[in-house]
């Protein structure tokens, strides 16, 4: 019973840790906009946390510059399982307009497993919420898979 309750509450209280890997700040602002009264992601239990140790969902924005790659990997390693990785915007998926630059490592799938990718430059807040909600469901599935 407790197992079920825990698994269920996984999707009800996903805490987000946001990593900016060289983004133009557009996506970051949209992510914060999601928490504002108009969109209010907190009604689903989303909350921004200050440290990866508390996080369930890691949101990556930006095209992953060479400088930030190590930091990204290290930070991701510090997140306790179960965790879900979400990419925000087109940059981490493809490199977007930065593609081909000598200092950009995108796409992020090359070195990190990505569960949900939210596309757009920048994605609309509605899309962000939909993506995060999806991530929360994946989180619950992961938890259930862990306990099987």
């Amino acid at each position, binding site marked *: 019973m*407790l*197992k079920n309750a*825990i698994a269920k509450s996984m999707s009800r209280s996903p805490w987000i840790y946001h990593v900016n890997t060289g983004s133009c700040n557009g996506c970051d602002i949209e992510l914060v906009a999601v928490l504002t009264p108009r969109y209010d992601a907190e009604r689903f239990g989303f909350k921004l946390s200050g*440290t*990866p140790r508390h996080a369930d969902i890691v949101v990556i924005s930006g095209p992953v510059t060479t400088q930030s790659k*190590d*930091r990204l990997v*290290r930070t991701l390693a510090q997140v306790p399982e179960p965790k879900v990785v979400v990419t925000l915007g087109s940059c981490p998926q493809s490199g977007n307009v930065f593609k081909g630059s000598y200092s950009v490592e995108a796409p992020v799938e090359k070195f990190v497993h990505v569960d949900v990718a939210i596309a757009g430059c920048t994605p609309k807040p509605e899309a962000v919420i939909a993506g995060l909600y999806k991530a929360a469901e994946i989180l619950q599935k992961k938890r259930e898979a862990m*306990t099987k």
Partner: protein
Amino acid sequence: MSYVHFPVIAVMTLFMGAFLTVVLGKHSRAVRSFLAIAASGIAFVLIAMLVKPVLIDGEIISYWMGNWNPVNGYAIGIGYEVDQLGMFFALLVVSTILLSAVYSLRYIERDSSQEFYYVLFLMLSGSVLGLVLTGDVFNMFIMIEIMTFTAVGLTAFRNTGFGSVEAAFKYLVIGSIGSSFTLFGIAILYGQCHTLNMAQLSAMLSGNHSPATLMAFALMFTGLAVKSYIVPFHTPAADAYTTAPSSISMVFSGMVNKAGVYGIIRLVYIIFRTMDIPAVQTLMVIFGAVTMFIGVTMALAQHDFKRLLAFHSISQIGYVITAVGLCTSLGLTGGLFHAMNHTLFKGLLFLCAGAVLRATGTTNLDQLGGLSKKMPATTVCFLIGAFSISGLPPFNGFASKWLVYQAAYDKAVTTGNFLYVFVTIVALIVSVMTLASFIKVTQAAFFGQLPERLKDVEEVPFLMQLPMWIMSALCVLSGVFYNFVDKYLLVPAVSAALGVSRYIDSMMGSGYAAEKCVTDIQASGVHFSYWNPMVWLALFVIVLCAACLCILTSKGSRGEILEGDGEDGKYATFFSGEKALPSHVGGSDLFWGFKTDWKGYFNIMEGLHSGVVNDYALYVVAAAAIVVVFTFMFMR
């Protein structure tokens, strides 16, 4: 052999041990260790054997040296008088001696001229034991003097290091001013009463104060206050505790300043029997409150482990003086209990500091860090000591501080005097600040990150851990079973301090006190509202539940407790994604907001603790002058 001889034999054993160590202990380490342990052990056993007759059966042992009994109601000979109050302090003294001797065996093994260490140590022990057992004021003065200059010698023992000779010199100057005041007071008393026996003095002086005896009171009070290091006499104490070997710092705070406190209690409650005069109460409470506040704020500003502890010693003595100065049985109980607890937890903390010093070679808080992984036993003992001194329940500091607060506020509401409310508030706030400064030590020395320099630190040997564990156990036990402490130690001691006539009668023959019209001090009745022992049942049940919760959540399918070594990023400290760097938040970086807000105060205090011995002497003389003026203004 009758037990009436035990007190004298105990004192003589220690002095004899010192003598034998000079003669025999020069070449063999085994011999001097044996002598130190044997002498302190015998003293401990002898005093412990007096517990039954004195503390449980309530007998007062009076003993005339060379059988010089009083003639025609005049006591000429030197008398030992062991009442429950003296016995209480004697027990503290012998326990401290024994534990310190055990600790010293390994602690000073790397020093040279160890025989002198033991000689001075045993003489210091003997003098303090003699001081609390004697019934003669001049004998008391002699013991104080022996205590002072053996203490000075021990302070300067590690004289190759930083500042120890300087501390010893300051200690000697201030200490000898204090002794001189005491001697002056004793001389005036002798001129007035022609006796040196405490019981007889008490009979003659009670309620019968001439200007000369008032002067004597002021001088002796100041002199003994110097020995108990209350502010503004505390300056040499801070230096001496810092630089003396830790086993000696423990002795200093465990019994040397307790000897001063004992002297003050004896002086105001028995010899002059002035405690029911409100002016004396006010004097002591103000001294106590100032002492605890200045002590703790200075401690917050320190960067050295032992110096911080030294200022805490001063601050805690403030609690004792305040509580004793309230002149209620609740206050006296709280004060004595706190004195005992202070011996336990401060001794423990100094031993921990010694362990850190031995293991790492420094006590500078800015150079330490992360020792908890290398020295787990020391860390646990330190935490117990720190929680005790900060008064967290269920440790012993809580029980005694609680009594102090209750006594102070009780005094406030029964007398309607706002001063005592203020004192209560100060006492409560000082307790939080004490906690703050120990958090500082905890973070700076034991937790946080291990500096590269301390990678191969090792835990101290078992023989050094043993006294630490014993004291930790005592800290917890006396906090949990305060009822026993109260029943067998505190109640007898309090009634002895208040029962002046009994003290006089058992020394000078029964009826003597009544003849001189001496009455016992009337102190308002004891009302304890100790917390219910049921709490402990509750605590255990809940700890059980909590433990269950932990097991529940840590096993198997639920989240697991993972530990890792090596450079795997998962177990590294979070540095915003950077590779973990050695960055330790040290002692001086803590409490920033507090320090900025109090910058002016700290600057003034730093200026006052200038380190110049002349200034320190000035404070002593000025305070003595204030006490004299106060005495003459309000005690006539």
